[in-house]
């Protein structure tokens, strides 16, 4: 049965909820720490102006936090509602981090959130400060566990396939937790949140400077946020480098799509900027780019830490490359079909108690087990993710990340020498960088998730197999409802946020 419409709608719904959710999460991650820094300064100095500054940003934090929760609850339950096969086949491994996230992080956030907002006159200064820090730590712990789960989807480790239950089962909790992809992904993602939080604070503060109001509060906020943002940007770039290195090692098709690379080579350069050739197909020998600016050797070096390393392109990965010992995808699909058939034979033999046949089928299955997921694919080219979306998203993300570093540097520099109030150009640039921060975060997730296609679990479980047995109409209805509801709530959130910003620090 062709379930492509159902899969597309299910993916659209998940993408919609994830993208809405990611509009709010990075700000929570970053702003929570910035508020904690500000309140620490207040407790250390006793200066009530820092309390006002803290409370002002806390109000904006609360508005953002509420809608983050609203969109977040959907994510967990959608694994069950829309990806029930996935939930069963890998739930043994994937469910654990989600549950730990609840125990370790959600309760911490929700308990101390109440103290942070309503406890100013109910607990001591230090207890309040501790609560603010615990909200920040809780938010980031939450990110840790969800990214452990996501990292495992990108690079599955610490598990085995159980033929009797027909699912993957965990073998090593610590392999899942310390999965190198998960570690780099967590660090990269939370640092992107810190950058977003810093952009938000310096952008809004710059608006006050442009309007020549609340200037003392704004300048103090900029110093805290630009310092944090600059450090976070440096960290973001280094974790991004490690993240891309892990992609090169574990997800070669994703790397090839990120770079628009068809014909791989040693000493491969990296495309700094370029325009993909439209209509290009695997093995057609057309140029990869209409035009491009490349940095020589850089992809080999950054991807594999070796200037002479061979970087496989999409042609190599689909058609194979004997010289570099890369198996053609068609062979992997054929072996995958053998794995699927032998698994089916094993189950049938078990049903009729045919021990001899079940043993033989099991032996065959174990030989081809690692190709199991490929058995579901129809064509070798199916292993390639959408190239255009992945390539442009990746390059937009990298370009914006570099811009944020420059912006934070100048904002901090001018703040330190006391000239930030005069730099109207930078104030405007900071203000307009707020939407760019959101854009960078969204395209980053597009690289991660679209670049993972066609897999729900890299190399193991294709997206088409992971979905629930639903009708496409059912999903279409809920997709539209989600789109309408979330858009309505987003409009409400933006209007409330703008209104609170207009009220300024004095009302805090």
């Amino acid at each position: 049965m062709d379930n492509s419409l159902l899969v597309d709608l299910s993916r659209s719904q998940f993408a919609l909820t994830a993208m809405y959710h990611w509009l709010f999460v990075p700000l929570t991650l970053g702003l929570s720490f910035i508020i904690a820094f500000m309140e620490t300064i207040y407790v250390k100095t006793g200066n009530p102006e820092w309390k006002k500054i803290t409370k002002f940003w806390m109000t904006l934090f609360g508005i953002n936090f509420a809608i983050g929760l609203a969109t977040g609850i959907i994510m967990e339950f959608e694994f069950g509602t829309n990806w029930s096969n996935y939930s069963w086949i890998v739930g043994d491994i994937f469910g654990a981090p989600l549950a730990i996230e609840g125990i370790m992080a959600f309760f911490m956030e929700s308990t101390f959130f109440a103290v942070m907002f309503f406890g100013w006159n109910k607990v001591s200064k230090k207890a309040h400060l501790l609560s603010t820090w615990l909200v920040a730590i809780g938010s980031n712990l939450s990110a840790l566990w969800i990214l452990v789960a996501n990292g495992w989807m990108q690079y599955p480790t610490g598990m085995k396939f159980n033929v009797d239950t027909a699912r993957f089962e965990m073998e090593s909790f610590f392999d899942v937790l310390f999965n190198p992809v998960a570690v780099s992904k967590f660090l990269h993602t939370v640092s992107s949140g810190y950058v977003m939080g810093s952009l938000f604070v310096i952008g809004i503060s710059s608006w006050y400077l442009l309007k020549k109001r609340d200037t003392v509060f704004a300048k103090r906020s900029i110093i805290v946020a630009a310092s944090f943002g600059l450090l976070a940007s440096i960290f973001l770039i280094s974790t991004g480098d490690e993240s891309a290195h892990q992609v090169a090692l574990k997800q070669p098709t994703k790397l090839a799509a990120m770079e628009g690379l068809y014909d791989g080579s040693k000493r491969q350069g990296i495309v700094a900027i370029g325009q993909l050739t439209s209509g290009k197909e695997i093995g057609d020998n057309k140029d990869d780019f209409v035009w491009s600016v490349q940095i020589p050797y850089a992809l080999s070096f950054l991807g594999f830490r070796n200037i002479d390393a061979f970087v496989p392109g999409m042609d190599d990965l689909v058609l194979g490359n004997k010289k570099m010992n890369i198996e053609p995808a068609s062979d992997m699909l054929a072996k995958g079909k053998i794995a699927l058939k032998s698994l089916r034979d094993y189950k049938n033999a078990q049903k009729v108690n045919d021990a001899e046949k079940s043993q033989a089928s099991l032996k065959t299955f174990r030989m081809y087990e690692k190709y199991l997921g490929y058995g579901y694919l129809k064509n070798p080219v199916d292993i390639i993710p959408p190239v255009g979306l992945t390539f442009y998203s990746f390059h937009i993300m990298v370009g914006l990340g570099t811009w944020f570093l420059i912006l934070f540097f100048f904002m901090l520099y001018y703040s330190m020498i006391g000239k930030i109030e005069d730099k109207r150009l930078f104030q405007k640039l900071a203000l307009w960088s707020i939407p760019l921060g959101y854009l960078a975060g969204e395209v980053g997730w597009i690289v991660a998730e679209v670049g993972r296609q066609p897999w729900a679990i890299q190399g193991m479980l294709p997206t088409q197999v992971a979905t629930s047995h639903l009708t496409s109409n059912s999903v279409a209805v809920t997709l539209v409802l989600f789109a309408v509801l979330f858009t309505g709530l987003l409009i409400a959130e933006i209007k409330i946020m703008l209104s609170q910003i207009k009220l300024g620090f004095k009302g805090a």
Partner: protein
Amino acid sequence: MFEKLSYLALQEYWWFLIALLGALFVFMTFVQGGQTLLNKVAKSEDEKDIVIASLGRKWELTFTSLVMFGGALFAAFPLFYATSFGGAYYVWMAILFCFIIQAVSYEYRKKPDNFLGQKTFEIFLFINGSLGIILIGAAVGTLFTGGNFILSDMNLSSWTLSSRGLEAVLNPFNVILGLVVFFLARVQASLYFLNNINHEGIINNTRRVLRNDAILFLAFFILFCILLLTLSGVAYDGNAFVVVKYKFLLNFLASPILLGIFLVGALLVIYALFISLFKKSQQGIWFSGVGTVLVVLALFSLLGFNNTAIYPSLSDLQSSLDIRNAAASRYTLVAMSYVSLLVPFVLGYIIIVWRKMDQKQITSDEIQSDSHHY
């Protein structure tokens, strides 16, 4: 430590934790109950603000308990999670929508330029507290009455009715359980207000509302008990799943401890109502809270005990799920069991914070002097 437990003991331990989380969630639904009482107990804007502030400092804990309940089911009983959520799609989606609209309502309700208006957010809170809770009760009812699903030999589930779980609300048992939870939430909300709010007008209104809700709660609860004790259940007899008449009555008789927990819990709730209505006590919420946790714990435990199916299949009896065939692997349950050692610690800091924040009752003066209020 946990490695030494048998696989079945681990499954039972995790079902107990699920039951505990479910019980804590049901206790915390006093927030939802309170949302449905907003216009009944608060007659002016100031009074509304007090009620919203009282509930608003707790709503996230309820929300988190629900998410935790789902997360624990996913990790410990993934086949149940996949089958129920992926099958009864419309019911779970309806519940999710009811909770999405709650999450923003406290924060946005009275903020300037909130686009949808204060009234809309108050309607959202009412929908969450009424429809959301009744549907959750009905969905949990299907654990006793079953769902229309089948499992393939690869354990992949599919639903056999196009109504996708909405049929659950046609079953009287499910609906009555939904109404029991709904009126329990309202009753507990009233007890919570009596304890948490210092405002004569609200307290007088609350006592009036509590009287009516208590009668309705007790009526539906007694009806539910009768239906439960006469209900047939599904059990695994060692070879196959079979239908067993009076299964839950038999489970109670087979485990006097569970019966005792259930009865003590029910008596505590009744005692809480009595002292609140007739002795003007403010402490009813604690008795009713403990009672609710005990009753729900006992009810959930009935499902995971004595070879009972936790999710009978109405389409193919042999596709039914029990704690054995729906559970995560032994390794995962052991690993998760170590994580579960954090639960007492988490409960500990919640209790400490709760006590500290609720040391003094909420007053009108406090709300007006607080720069950040809902």
